[in-house]
């Protein structure tokens, strides 16, 4: 039987979390293909993933979150998966939240985002993050007219058209954010959101924080400008 669902997990040094995450995914989605994109981890991430029957794509050096997610999406696109789901490898996402996203894509959406905000009004994750999220969600809404509450969410489902956009070489490859939404809108994709719970982070290292947050805001503002006014991503140099 050929599976229609690919679940891809970007992972950087997640050997400690992967057993649980892959185990839970297997139980909820027995027919799905699981692909762990190992971002040149220095721990046993790849071995743990293989021992749980997941496919493992190991990057030769570190590309960061966006590059890892994109590698997984490229795999899905090339192998003709009608639905690709991106899922955090650190155990913060709930496998059951994949269901509504998959349904949304089956129902015609090109991009379905699991929103932490829709799931709980009290979702926080720190003052700066909250502030940043509402800033960019607001900007994205202004620019696209879409009511998307959580553009940075790592839990997404993509149909073929969504996959094709996210796999483009020049698609923003740092952290997909409001700029990705703007691009998706410009590509006339159908975008929707479903609630998704986010377990509290047990994390020692988080992707955004500190001075990086300031740089992030500037990068994102500029990236939004480029996404909105820039040349078509398909155009060759």
């Amino acid at each position, binding site marked *: 039987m050929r599976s229609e669902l690919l679940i891809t997990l970007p992972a950087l040094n997640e050997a400690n979390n992967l057993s649980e995450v892959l185990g839970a995914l297997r139980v909820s989605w027995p*027919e799905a293909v699981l692909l762990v994109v190992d971002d040149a981890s220095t721990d046993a991430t790849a071995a743990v993933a293989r021992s749980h029957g997941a496919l493992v794509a190991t*990057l030769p*050096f570190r590309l960061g979150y966006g590059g890892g997610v994109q590698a997984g999406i490229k795999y899905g696109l090339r192998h003709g998966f009608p639905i690709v789901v991106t899922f955090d490898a650190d155990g913060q996402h709930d496998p059951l939240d994949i269901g509504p996203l998959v349904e949304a894509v089956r129902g015609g959406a090109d991009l379905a985002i699991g929103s932490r905000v829709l799931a709980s009004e009290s979702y926080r994750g720190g003052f700066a993050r909250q502030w940043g999220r509402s800033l960019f969600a607001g900007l994205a809404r202004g620019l696209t007219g879409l009511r998307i509450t959580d553009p940075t969410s790592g839990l997404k489902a993509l149909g073929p058209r969504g996959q094709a956009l996210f796999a483009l070489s020049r698609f923003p490859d740092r952290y997909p954010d409001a700029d990705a939404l703007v691009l998706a809108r410009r590509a006339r994709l159908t975008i929707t959101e479903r609630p998704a719970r986010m377990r509290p982070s047990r994390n020692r290292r988080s992707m955004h924080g500190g001075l990086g947050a300031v740089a992030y805001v500037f990068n994102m503002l500029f990236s939004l400008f480029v996404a909105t006014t820039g040349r078509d991503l398909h155009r060759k140099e």
Partner: protein
Amino acid sequence: MPTRQIVVFLALVLILFVAILELARRRVLRVEYSWLWIASCLTTVLFILRYDLLVKLTDFVGGVVPTSVLFFLCILYLALLCLHYSIRISALTHQVKDLAQEVALLRLGLENADTAPLDAPGPRLE
């Protein structure tokens, strides 16, 4: 310009020029970059030999001191060069990212060529 200065600077430019030719010959420097450096050398030689041209240029742009105009042009030139490199690096960053992803996916395809799990769509020959 005093002859001594002319000789010293011409010698420096000559050394740079020979170094560039040699780097290009050893294929350390790509041809499309070497012409840029050769053009820089020739411009420098021109201004060393024909200081009056620099004075004319200064008058033309409304400058007061020829040396300031020269420095300004040098800085502008270097800034443009940096911009050019940033553009190249941006393009290379995309290419390197795509290649790294390609390597990861090809490796995955090879590993699974013989031991593909039943439900996994095997790598498709294109």
